C-alpha cells in the first residue's frame, strides 16, 4: 500500500478495529498548512449502503466543533476502499506515545477525550471505540480520534475481528451482549482507558489473547477489578464509571471530565 486516492502513504501507524492508519502527505487540494496527516484505510470492501452510512457518521463527526476532537479533513472511497484523513500527532497516542506521558498529562488527556466524547454525544453520536490508541497526545492534554464503525459498516456487528483482540478490554460488555451504544458505553470505555493509562493494567486482569471467542467470554463473564496501584480517589471514579447498571454511572462524559480534572489538580 503506497497510495490511496491522492495520498502518498509514508508509514503505517498500526491497525485499528476496521482498518489501518498511515501517516501521509496531504494532497494540495485540501489547502492544509500541515505536512502530515493520518489516513485511515478501511480493510473491507463495503457495500454502497455501508459507504453511505459511514459517510453520514463521518460528516456528523466533522460537524462537531470541539477543540478536544481530532479534526477530520477528508473522506472518500476509491475502487471500493474507504479512507479518511485526520489530524496527525507526532507525540503519538496514550496507546503508543512517543515518550511516556507524566501522570498529570495522562489524566488531562483522558479528561480531554471525555470532553470530546461529550460533544459527540450532544450531536447524537456515540464514539464506541474509545481506547488509549484513540486518545492522541497534544499540548499537554489529549484529543479524541476516530470512531467505532463496526455497527455502521454492518448493522448488528459489534466487533469486526480486524483489530487486535486486546482492544475489547475497553468495550462495555453490554455492547458485546447487544445493548445499543449510548453515553454510558463511552463512559465505561473512558474509565477502562484511564485505568490502563494510570496503572498499566487491564480491568479484567490478563485477557486471554489466543482467540477472540475466549477473550469475549472472559470480558463478558469477569467483573472488572480496579488495580491496587491507584489512589482511592482515582479508584472510586473508575468504579463509578464501571457500574454494572448504566444508570448508576456518571450521567455524562462531561461529568467524567470534571472529576478527572479534579484528580489532575490534586497531584
Amino acid at each position, binding site marked *: 500500500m*503506497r*497510495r*490511496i*486516492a*491522492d495520498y502518498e502513504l509514508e508509514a503505517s501507524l498500526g491497525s485499528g478495529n476496521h482498518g489501518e492508519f498511515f501517516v501521509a502527505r496531504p494532497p494540495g487540494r485540501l489547502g492544509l498548512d500541515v505536512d502530515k496527516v493520518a489516513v485511515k484505510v478501511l480493510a473491507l470492501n463495503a*457495500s*454502497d*449502503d455501508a459507504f453511505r*452510512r459511514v459517510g*453520514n*457518521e463521518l*460528516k*456528523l463527526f*466533522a*460537524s462537531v466543533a470541539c477543540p478536544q476532537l481530532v479534526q*477530520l479533513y*477528508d*473522506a*472518500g472511497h*476509491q*475502487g*471500493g476502499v474507504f479512507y479518511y484523513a485526520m489530524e496527525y500527532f507526532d507525540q503519538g497516542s496514550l496507546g503508543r506515545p512517543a515518550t511516556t506521558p507524566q501522570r498529570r498529562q495522562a489524566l488531562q488527556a483522558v479528561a480531554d477525550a471525555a470532553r470530546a466524547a461529550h460533544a459527540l*454525544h*450532544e*450531536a*447524537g*453520536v*456515540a464514539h464506541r471505540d474509545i481506547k488509549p490508541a484513540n486518545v492522541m497526545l497534544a499540548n499537554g492534554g489529549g484529543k479524541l480520534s476516530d470512531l467505532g464503525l463496526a*455497527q*455502521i459498516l*454492518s*448493522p*448488528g*456487528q*459489534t*466487533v*469486526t*475481528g*480486524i483489530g487486535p*483482540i486486546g482492544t475489547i478490554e475497553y468495550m462495555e460488555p453490554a455492547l*458485546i*451482549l*447487544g*445493548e*445499543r*451504544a*449510548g*453515553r*454510558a*458505553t463511552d463512559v465505561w470505555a473512558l474509565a477502562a482507558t484511564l485505568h490502563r493509562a494510570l496503572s498499566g493494567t487491564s480491568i479484567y486482569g490478563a485477557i486471554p489473547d489466543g482467540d*477472540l*471467542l475466549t477473550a*469475549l*467470554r472472559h470480558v463478558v*463473564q469477569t467483573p472488572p477489578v480496579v488495580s491496587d496501584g491507584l489512589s482511592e480517589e482515582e479508584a472510586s471514579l473508575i468504579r463509578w464509571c464501571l457500574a454494572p447498571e*448504566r*444508570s448508576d*454511572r456518571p*450521567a*455524562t462524559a462531561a461529568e467524567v471530565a470534571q472529576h478527572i480534572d479534579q484528580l489532575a489538580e490534586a497531584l
Partner: protein
Amino acid sequence: MNPDRRLEIGRGDGTVVAVPGIALLAVGDDPPESLVEIVRAAAETQPPGRDLARRLAGLLTGDHADRVPAFGAVAEVDGGLLVFLYGSVDATAVHDDGTALRLAGSDATTWVDRVLGLDHRVVTIASEADPVSDETPFEVTSGIVPAGWLRVIVPSSAQAQAGLRAETPQAPAGATPVEPAEPAGETPVEPAEPAEEVPVAEEAPVAKVAPVAEVAPTPIPPPRPVDQPLDPVAESTSPLPEPEAAAQSSTTEPTVEPAEPETAPVTPPPIPPPPGAHAADAPSADAPAADAPSPEAATAQAETDDPPTEALPVAFESFSLTPDRGTFRAPLPADREDPTGGTAGSDGDDAEVPERKMVQGIMCSRQHFNSPDSAFCSSCGISMVHATHNLVRRERPPLGFLVFDDGSTFTLDDRYVLGREPESDPLVQSEQARPIALEDAQMSVSRVHAEIQLIGWDVQLLDRGSTNGTHLLNERGDGWDRLPPQQPRMVAPGSRVAVGQRTFVYESPQRG
C-alpha cells in the same frame, strides 16, 4: 465509457446503454428496466466493472433470468476492461500486436466474464445475428441509443488507431443520446500506483464464470473432518477452537433431531478448488505475468514512440464533510432506568436499530427481564429460583451473539441472512433481516446460504437451500449434522455452525 475512451455504435436491431465506465449492447429494442438499472447502479462505483459483473450475475441467477435478452457489455476494471457476454452476442478484441481475440456468449452455458489487459485496444460487441455494419459509426458518450453493435476504442495506441482511421466517426444528425445518463460525480485525478497490467493469453480458454457455489458439481464438506475429535491444540488453522461447545449445548434442551450420518460427509476429501473460482475473484491471476509491462515502461512513455502502457487512473471520490440537511441528530438520551426494558441510551441512528419484538418473560429480583425458563438472570447472574414467576410482556433483549471464524461478532437482536451476497435476498432488501456477508475464497458459501431467526426466546438456524449445506456440530463434537434445507432447527448456546466452509459459534450470556 471513460472520457478517455471512444465509444462508437452502428445501426442494427439492438440497444446500447452507455454510462460512465460501461457500454452495454442488448439484443432487441426494449431492454428490460432491470438491466438498465443494473448498469446505472454499477456506474456509481468507479471503475464499475467488478460491481457490474456481480450485479449481472445476480440478475442472471435470479428469478427473472428468462426475461433477460442476449447482451454484451464492456466495462472498466482496474488495469483492464471487463467483457461480459450473455447469449448470442460476440466480442472481438484487437490486441496491440495485431492479433484478435474472439469471445462468444453462446460458447458458455451461463455467461462469459473476461478481463482483458489494456493492451487490447479495440473491443467490439455485436449480436451474432446482426454483424458489424460497414457504415460510418456514430460516436456516443452516454445514454440509451438504438444500435446493432458497439465498439470501445482505448486511445493512444498507434497500431490500433492506425487500423481505425478509416472509421473516424462523423456523428450524423440525430445521433444525440436520447436519454443522457447522470454525469459522474467523481473526477479522476492522477493515476494510482501503476497496477501491473497482465495481458490475457490469446489461447486461454474462454472463462465460463458462474457463481460457483451454485453449480459446483461436488458439494464441499464442512470444515472439520468428522473422523477427528475436537482438539483445540491441534486446531491451528481455526481461530476458534471450541472445546466447550458440546458441553454448553446441554445447558438448554434443544429439539435436536437425531444425527443423520448418511447426510454428513464421512471422510471429507481435500477441498478441490472449485472450477472458475479464481476466474471470479482474480481474472488475470493465471495469465502469464512475464508479459506484464514494467512500471518503468510506463514512465518512459513520453520519450519513446512505444505504445503507452500506463494504468488507468483509478477514480476516487472525495466527498464533502458538510452534513446533509436533515441528518443532524438529537443528543443521545440519558441512560436512565427504563421501565420498558432495554432501550435506554439508544443510539441516534434509528434506521439501523431494529424494532424489538415483545415477548413474555420473568423478572429477576433486580428487575432484569429473562426467559421464563431461566435458572439464572442473564444480566446479573442471580438465581431465578425464588423469583416470582409472574409472566410479564417486555421488549426481547438480545439473545446473545455470533462469533465468526474471522473474529467478526454480531449481536442477536434481529433476524439475519448469511451468504456470499446476502444483500440480494428479498428479506434483506425489504429490511426484514440484516445481511451478514461471508467472504470465502473457496466459494463454498452460496449467495444466500442460511438464515438466523429469533423465535420467542429461541435462536433458530435455517439452511436456505445452499449448495454445500449448513451443518451443526453434533453434541459429542465429533461430527457435523447437515440441516435439511428450509427446515428451521433450534440451536443451543455454545453451538458451532458451518456455513459452507465458514464457521461461527452462537454464544449466549446464560450463566449456568
